């Protein structure tokens, strides 16, 4: 309730505030998803190396590929947010 009252009482540049919230939400949610994904990749890597240490070399290439593909998701979010921030 207090938040709504605070929002209603805002007198400054509301558009700017909205843009800033949008940017932060976009990057934050993107980072959330990618964090889960990257954790998953490295967790699985540890498990598979623990089970079959001789496959480490082969797995490493796939691991880094997956890491970079997942990490890029944050940047799609970032880019979309920056576009929203600049263009709207």
């Amino acid at each position, binding site marked *: 309730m207090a938040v709504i009252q605070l929002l209603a009482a805002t007198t400054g540049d509301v558009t700017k505030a909205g843009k800033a919230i949008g940017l932060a939400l976009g990057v934050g949610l993107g980072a959330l998803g990618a964090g889960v994904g990257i954790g998953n990749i490295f967790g699985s890597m540890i498990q598979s190396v623990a089970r079959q240490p001789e496959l480490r070399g082969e797995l490493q290439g796939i691991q880094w590929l997956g890491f970079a593909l997942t990490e*890029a998701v944050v940047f*799609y979010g970032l880019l979309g947010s920056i576009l929203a921030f600049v263009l709207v």
Partner: protein
Amino acid sequence: MKRWLLIATTAALAFPTAAFARGKFDPTTEFEQHEWISIHIGGLNLSITKAVVYLMIGTVLTILMGLGLMRWKVTSDKDVGRRQSFGEQIYEIAQVQVAEQGLPTKAIGRWFPYVATLMLFIFVVNLIGFIPLPLTGEKWHGVPTWGIYAATSSLSVTLALALLTFVFTHFEGIRWNGPRRYFKSWIPEAPRALLFLIVPLEILGQFMRLISLSVRLFANMLAGHILILTFIGLMFILESLALIPVVVFASAFYIFEVAIVVGIQAFIFAALSAIYIGSAIEPEH
């Protein structure tokens, strides 16, 4: 060497007025492009900007690296240990991890040079992006200021690289399979009623590859530079020396970028290029 670095750092910290002199600090100015040498041909703007200079330096360094590591004659035993093993390591990554993963055996001879060049070039351009160079285009009392900038943090550069891969992919697909068989391979096996939904998605997917390939590299480098600059620039934005500990985070992130991201992004770009070209040469069905 270490002692000189220490002296330089203390000197820089002892005169914060020099550092504060610029007044308002804005990290986004790093990414502005100014025409240093203006070249306009018709409607084309071929001016030499900061990104172009960085690309030229990157090109020269890549050529020198290739020559130095792989062509230069080995003279002494000590040379064999260092230089040759480093060159062989790079070659092995390009051969085993990149080319053989994506390309079919019959196309490796033709496309290995392209993929390996792509990897080396992006690696070098990314790496010189994290080395401070006096190329910011700004002057402080007549002395050029030093700054970091990566050419790959400009979308035009990465999009041009991705377009190369995009064109080669379809060129090779048509050359090996003929246009009929190649475009037919885009149509997956699915119930006839669903095809009108799936085929546009497949075609869109081909263009999404272009976007994802270019944006991945571009946004990675852009975000890395923005983060490092804002961490360091926080001192200058808020104008307080109490924020100096923030530099620790900045340098930690800097090391992460240089040690991991630079290499990974170069590797990924080359590996995905190889996979795309390979999948066009040998479509699954």
